[in-house]
């Protein structure tokens, strides 16, 4: 991999312009309460369709890093998390603001996010190529088990109700079966519609599930006005430096937790924030101060949620298995660009992978100046009229979904999946496993079918190879150990 060439590619004026524009877009979306980082990425996809791979992925990387940080701003100012990733410490941050430490908490959010993002990026840069070398020896058997492990982790980790997560996952897997069968070419679940022969458009599905569903939710609460936010005064950056230095080991722990959870499929920035905050409290010397406006947990969690972004790219690039819903979108974009996420991407598209690494570093460095700008402008952004903003986002979603294939049919997909996504979220069914199912469905079926054909129907071939056997054991352990532990506890109690 040639990093010099990658730096040249990323620093081309047109690519830089796209990165800065997507950074500003990410900061804007992240600052708006209720609009998520995933939604920002999904809205960018139609635009990336017409870009080269490096600016396309660079736009999504930058936009997601910025929006995860920006979600902290309304959290501190209004006690409303801009994105779910900030939810864990929103109360703590708000109380710090009420104590007159608004600049300090926002500074910690900003520096913590940048440090976490850089940590995740460094792990990605060093770990991904090593893992890819190992993965080059994988066959369809190993990919089959890896895909199943990814889907299982996504289902079990991302939701309070594993059954609802499993349901969402299988609805996603079903959507992936729509279209022509890969082996026989037979149409499945197309109901005679030619538009469905190529399957459900991934971009339309993403816009429907993440943007339209969110717009329905926001339209239903359009009368709820935000309280007037406070104005941030004084120098912001120095205010939090001392806290970061004081809790440096906590920040490092947050970075590690975030990166690890990012690598785990399904557990993205949202969960990383919660777990890092909880771990910080567990190991704090002053746990009684948590919840009263104490900066310690904010340091850990701010670093953790941004660190998870880099981690999530490890399984996405190495195995083609998304670490979170944003990398599910990235895999979709890579596939559209003719790249096949997996270990071969490091040899066949090494320059692009290096450029993605460079973008990660650049995005997290840009976070400081652009983040400071966002903090200064927060009051103006938060008073933007939602009644104008929501129709603008809807129109952009409509035109974006239509523009990708120039197909009216894609609009029916965004509408149908928007309603489905809204219904599911309101009733406790998580969306992320559904998207992972949609993205990984074909991988699971193809690797299973190829393996069955190779093995002549002999199921033992799935566990014959050492790595495949180990992965199979991990898969069964994921599903069997939790209920066995529960059963053992119940037996012990009785």
């Amino acid at each position, binding site marked *: 991999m040639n990093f010099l060439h990658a730096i040249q590619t990323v620093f081309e004026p047109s690519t830089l312009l796209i990165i800065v524009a997507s950074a500003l877009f990410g900061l804007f979306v992240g600052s708006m309460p209720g609009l998520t980082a995933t939604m920002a990425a999904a809205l960018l996809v139609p*635009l990336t369709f*017409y870009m080269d791979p490096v600016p396309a992925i660079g736009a999504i990387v930058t936009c997601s890093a910025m929006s995860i940080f920006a979600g902290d701003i309304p959290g501190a100012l209004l006690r409303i998390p801009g994105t779910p990733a900030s939810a864990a410490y929103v109360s703590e941050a708000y109380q710090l603001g009420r104590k007159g430490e608004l600049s300090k908490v926002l500074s910690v959010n900003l520096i913590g996010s940048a440090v976490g993002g850089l940590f995740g990026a460094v792990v990605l840069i060093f770990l991904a190529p090593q893992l890819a070398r190992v993965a080059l020896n994988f066959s369809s058997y190993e990919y089959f088990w890896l895909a199943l492990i990814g889907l299982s982790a996504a289902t079990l980790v991302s939701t309070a109700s594993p*059954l*609802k997560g*499993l*349901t969402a996952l*299988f*609805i996603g*897997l*079903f959507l992936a*079966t729509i279209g022509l*069968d890969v*082996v*026989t070419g*037979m149409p*499945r*679940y197309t109901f005679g519609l030619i538009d469905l022969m190529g399957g459900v458009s991934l971009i339309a599905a993403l816009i429907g599930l993440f943007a*339209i569903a969110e*717009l*329905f*939710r926001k*339209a*239903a*609460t*359009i*009368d709820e006005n935000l309280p007037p936010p406070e104005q941030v005064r004084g120098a912001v950056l120095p205010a939090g430096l001392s806290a970061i230095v004081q809790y440096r080991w906590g920040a490092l722990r947050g970075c590690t937790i975030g990166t690890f959870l990012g690598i785990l499929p399904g557990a993205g920035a949202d969960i990383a924030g919660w777990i890092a905050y909880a771990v910080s409290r567990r190991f704090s010397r002053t746990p009684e101060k948590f919840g009263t406006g104490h900066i310690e947990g904010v340091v850990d969690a701010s670093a953790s949620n941004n660190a998870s972004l880099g981690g999530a790219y490890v399984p996405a690039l190495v195995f083609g298995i998304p670490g979170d819903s944003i990398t599910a979108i990235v895999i979709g974009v890579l596939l559209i660009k003719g790249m096949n996420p997996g270990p071969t991407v490091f040899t066949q598209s090494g320059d692009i992978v290096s450029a993605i690494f460079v973008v990660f570093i650049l995005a997290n460095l840009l976070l400081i100046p652009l983040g400071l700008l966002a903090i200064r402008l927060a009051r103006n952004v938060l008073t933007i*009229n939602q*009644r*104008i903003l*929501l*129709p*603008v986002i*809807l*129109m*952009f979603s*409509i*035109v974006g979904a*239509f*523009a990708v294939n*120039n197909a*009216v049919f894609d*609009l*029916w997909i*965004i*509408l149908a999946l*928007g*309603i489905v996504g*809204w*219904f599911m979220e*309101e*009733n406790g*069914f998580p969306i992320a496993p559904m998207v992972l199912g949609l993205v990984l469905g074909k991988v*699971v*079926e193809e690797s*299973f*079918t190829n393996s*069955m*054909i190779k093995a002549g*129907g002999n199921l033992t071939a799935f566990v014959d190879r050492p790595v495949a056997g180990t992965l199979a054991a991990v898969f069964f352990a994921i599903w069997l150990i939790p209920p066995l532990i529960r059963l053992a506890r119940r037996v012990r109690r009785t």
Partner: protein
Amino acid sequence: MLKVSDVWSGLAVAGLGLGIFARAQSFVTVGAPAVSPSFYPGLIGLVLTACGIGLIVAAFRRAEVRPLAEMPGWLKRPGNIVAVLSVPVAIVVYGLASPDLGFLATSLLVMFGLLVAFRVSLLWSVAVAVLLSALLYVVFVVLMRVPLPAGVIEGWLR
């Protein structure tokens, strides 16, 4: 959106699963059953059916006291009903009208309608509709060369 008891969600999921399984049985079987086009979706259908039954059983086990469906708050406020309904109406109108009217005319129409439905003043609605349509036209058609549907206004611009 309507919040329903897991009993109803479970019934819907089980129904979907059974439908997927039944439809899969109509696919032509080629070669070994495990590699036929019906195997994988059939399996998905069965798991979804099991999930649906699981949701129903879990709801009964919890002895849910909540009603089978709860009326969402937004249905009590006419302004919110209009805002929610304007989302699907905008998508449908754009889908049906844009091939004939062209992008710019449809965008102006849909944006204006949306903004009015969201109770934005008429003057602001016109201004935002014109500005956003022009911006989208420049970004998608001029800069990215996406062939959005052309109509009367696009004809004047050429």
